[in-house]
């Protein structure tokens, strides 16, 4: 697989260099919303959706900024437009699909200031991805985030029944679990590249 190919970019963002476990993006929701599996799944889906939207927005803005040669406003434009886009999505969703809004809605404001979302936009710009590559990248990042969140939620709920010592309860336990997951994900190193 070529390093520029869409599949490789997707696989790399989702598994090999998992957005959460290897790139450390979106740690706050990863630690915060991973206590229950159901919420974790909804959150993951919401993140995938928002990532796609903001990735497309960022691609458009970057094109405009380059056109007018005002790249130094990139960060301000990204954050403002992504935040507004999420608001728009939220409002549209509320109006046209109340069911979907109930499932994902409460997570949308939370996601706006999630570093994974802005991270996708910044990384796709600095890596100079084209439109398709950007889409694959943001989708991979979202899927990777969801995988990590689901695995974490599964383990944490599993441990609710365990006699976890007082010392390691709470954030410390979650971080150690994240470390173990991150260790296990090292097994995916080099997946998809040509080695033969």
């Amino acid at each position, binding site marked *: 697989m070529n390093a520029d190919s869409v599949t490789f970019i997707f696989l790399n963002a989702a598994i090999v260099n998992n957005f959460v476990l290897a790139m450390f993006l979106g740690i706050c929701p990863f630690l915060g919303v991973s206590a229950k599996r159901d919420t974790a799944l909804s959150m993951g889906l919401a993140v995938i959706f928002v990532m796609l939207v903001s990735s497309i927005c960022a691609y458009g803005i970057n094109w405009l900024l380059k056109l007018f040669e005002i790249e130094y406003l990139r960060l301000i434009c990204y954050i403002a437009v992504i935040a*507004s886009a999420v608001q728009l999505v939220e409002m549209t969703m509320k109006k046209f699909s109340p069911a979907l809004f109930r499932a994902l809605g409460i997570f949308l404001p939370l996601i706006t200031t999630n570093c994974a979302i802005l991270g996708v936009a910044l990384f796709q710009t600095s890596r100079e991805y084209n439109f398709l590559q950007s889409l694959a990248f943001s989708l991979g990042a979202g899927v990777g985030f969801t995988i990590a969140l689901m695995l974490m939620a599964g383990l944490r709920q599993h441990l609710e029944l365990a006699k976890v010592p007082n010392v390691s309860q709470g954030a410390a336990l979650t971080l150690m679990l994240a470390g173990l997951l991150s260790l296990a994900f090292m097994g995916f190193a*080099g997946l998809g590249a*040509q080695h033969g």
Partner: protein
Amino acid sequence: MIQEGTAQSPVSPALTRSMLRTLGLVATLSGLLVVLSYRITLPIIEENKRLAIERALFKVIPGAISRQDFMITDRGIELAQSDLQGTALYAGYGQDGRLKGVALEAAAAGYQDVIRILYGYDPYCQCIRGIEVLKMAETPGIGDKIAKDPVFQENFTALEARANATGDGLERAIVLVKQGEKSEAWQIDAISGATISSKAIARMLNDSAQRYVPLIQNNLAVMEPAS
């Protein structure tokens, strides 16, 4: 964010004016600050970037002391201009002003992530004269030897990359061999224990050279000073 206010509560004109005033003020202030810091730092940053490029460039093209940027486009090789689209190509010139070699970026997936390198090509010996790793995330102690290991770097003092007669590739592909088995000029001696990282280097050099070496050979006149 901005819509939040308007969507939720009825807004009086006075409030709207005050919101617009504040946002306008903040935006102006922010624009001013950003442009100011951009203007102040721009020359320093450009200088830093130039130094970084030249440091790498003069390392991979032995004997070069000055540079000229070119661009590989659909039409061939042209002097770099901001509105040209294509692959960057840096030409290095020696003391006498003659072309010493050209440098190109190459990339391939390594063990952990994509490895990017700059390599120097000498069109007169038709060989690769040096590589410099620009970006990698290879395992410290194993894969990262591609950047530091002197024995591995020795591979790239005169690695053959000769254009074939038909001008559409290399006469002999650049290949990786097991450590200590290099016997031909177009072979790269692998780092033992770091096969994947070594292989990535061999693959990116071969891919890039297959594509660009014939092109460089055909366009030497563009880069050679007119003297």
